[in-house]
């Protein structure tokens, strides 16, 4: 099992070893060592927060270069609905989709279309009332992984239905296979992604053995190509099949509104998500039926692999949503997929914060941790490479840091050493000391 595959990685050459990323990481998964940021693999949830805050652009998401599509006979692009918000309002959704196809794909199928299938399956699930309230959306893989490492009591609340991306991939694969008599491995399905977490969910899925998606290309990588092609595709084939419901998934609240219930809460931004999950864990939001939690501020439109500002993107998306609302939705008969969307795999608690397997030892370590923490200056400056004094104390008891990693502690030690040295400096072995017995040379007399 590739338990700890991560899309978020570090470009060593660019990293200056500053403390921006360690301070923002929601799972305290980054330490600076030898002037380079190190990601603790088992803690990272691929939220991409570090990619966003790094002033050196040293944090990257590993995505597939667009050339990868050439290793497949039949190439399909499945764009996330957030793609539409990246372009100026003068371009229609159909233009964007046709331009995307022209850059090298045989077929384009909107993930927004599959989102509608997931919405309808979720509605069914809610109407059957057979779920733990509130149901927490699994649309954002970073949130699911966050729950795995920090909120084990909420694992049962996760909506265990396949993501629109997976559903879209399955639909296009079976359609293309049937239509063109292709073998499964001849069809390459590529997700056009706003985020790093989706790469991880394709390379190391938690909900099933293997993802139906063959590769993930970042929106950033196709953006200019689409823009340059857009002019050539005034009247392309009709590819914009999704309705307003599916397109709305790109923005916070979109998935919730499609459920037709008032009892929902939509939260975006990883740190806001954490406080809402705390509330749920404390049984404070039991009156909600559905909680949509998205790691990025602005939802998927704010993904680290997008191009434009999420608020501008949201305004642009509004136009596409309105247009889709006016246009009658063609029934493409995907209803049959609803039945088998339930996850075959499951998400389990990963107790990555645990200090020791043995409870007694853990208690001891915790005691030591509290003691060390008390002695630290409490400035949370990050100069030691850990995000906070408490995190340094934790690292010390785990044996991966020293007290003198704290520059204030080091300064204190140096000072007391200096004082000791000064004191020692005054002392002389009696045989060398010309002062002590009065038999010294005459030039010592003044010092009496």
């Amino acid at each position, binding site marked *: 099992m590739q338990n700890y595959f991560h899309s978020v990685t570090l470009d060593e050459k660019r990293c200056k070893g500053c403390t921006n990323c360690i301070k923002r990481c929601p799972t305290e998964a980054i330490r600076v060592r030898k002037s380079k940021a190190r990601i603790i693999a088992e803690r990272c949830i691929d939220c991409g927060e570090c990619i966003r805050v790094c002033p050196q652009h040293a944090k990257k998401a590993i995505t597939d270069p667009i050339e990868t599509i050439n290793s497949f006979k039949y190439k399909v692009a499945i764009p996330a609905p957030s793609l539409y918000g990246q372009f100026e309002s003068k371009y229609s959704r159909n233009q964007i989709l046709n331009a995307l196809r022209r850059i090298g794909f045989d077929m384009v199928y909107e993930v927004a279309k599959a989102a509608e299938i997931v919405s309808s399956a979720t509605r069914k699930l809610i109407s059957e009332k057979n779920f733990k309230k509130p149901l927490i959306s699994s649309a954002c893989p970073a949130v699911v992984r966050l729950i795995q490492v*920090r909120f084990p009591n909420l694992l049962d609340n996760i909506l265990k239905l396949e993501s629109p991306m997976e559903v879209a991939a399955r639909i296009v694969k079976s359609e293309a296979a049937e239509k063109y008599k292709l073998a499964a491995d001849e069809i390459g399905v590529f997700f056009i992604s706003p985020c790093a977490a989706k790469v991880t969910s394709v390379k190391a899925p938690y909900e099933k053995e293997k993802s139906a998606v063959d590769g993930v290309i970042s929106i950033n990588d196709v953006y200019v190509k689409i823009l340059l092609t857009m002019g050539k595709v005034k009247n392309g084939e009709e590819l914009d099949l999704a309705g307003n419901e599916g397109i709305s998934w790109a923005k916070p609240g979109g998935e919730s509104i499609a459920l037709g219930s008032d009892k929902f809460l939509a939260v975006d931004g990883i740190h806001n998500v954490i406080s809402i999950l705390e509330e749920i864990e404390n049984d404070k939001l039991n009156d909600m039926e559905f909680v949509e939690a998205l790691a990025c501020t602005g939802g998927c439109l704010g993904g680290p692999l997008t191009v434009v500002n999420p608020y501008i993107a949201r305004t642009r998306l509004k136009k596409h949503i309105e247009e889709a609302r006016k246009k009658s939705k063609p029934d493409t008969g995907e209803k049959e997929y609803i039945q088998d969307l339930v996850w075959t795999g499951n998400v389990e608690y990963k107790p990555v*914060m*645990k*200090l020791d397997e043995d409870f*007694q030892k*853990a*208690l001891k370590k*915790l*005691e030591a941790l*509290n003691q060390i923490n008390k002695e630290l200056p409490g400035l949370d400056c990050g100069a030691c490479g850990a995000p906070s004094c408490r995190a340094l104390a934790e690292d010390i008891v785990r044996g991966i840091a020293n007290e003198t990693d704290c520059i204030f502690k080091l300064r204190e030690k140096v000072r007391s050493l200096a004082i000791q040295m000064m004191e020692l400096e005054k002392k002389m072995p009696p045989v060398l000391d010309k002062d002590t017995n009065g038999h010294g040379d005459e030039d010592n007399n003044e010092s009496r």
Partner: protein
Amino acid sequence: MGDNVIKLDYVIPGDDFSVAGEASSNVKKVLNQLGIPPFIVKKATISMYEAEINSVIHAGGGNAHVEIDNEKIVVEITDQGPGIPDIELAMQEGYSTAPDEIRELGFGAGMGLPNIKRYSDELEINTEVGKGTTVRITIRLKA
């Protein structure tokens, strides 16, 4: 050696709802670091949270003292508030003496003490009208 005891102390500031719940949230982190099973962590944090909120609403804050050992988690919340004149009544679901402005904030639904009872293994309340209240919650780590 089974005599390790972790002691944690927190001050619960009164009349400040923005920080109410911070102590129990900190305790939750600690319990997770100890590798205590999630459902026990939940029992401890919810009951402590409710007691913490109670001290903010009714008593202008107080102190939280937590002890964790091999067998149990004990949370003691002490305040110098008005005390509880009728404990039996206070234990009833829906009964609350919280003023309206607190209810408007979404607190004071009369579920505090009943919830603590529900989530704790042992609950001991020592109260004296005019002097204050100590709520002692025990959560056992082993069945």
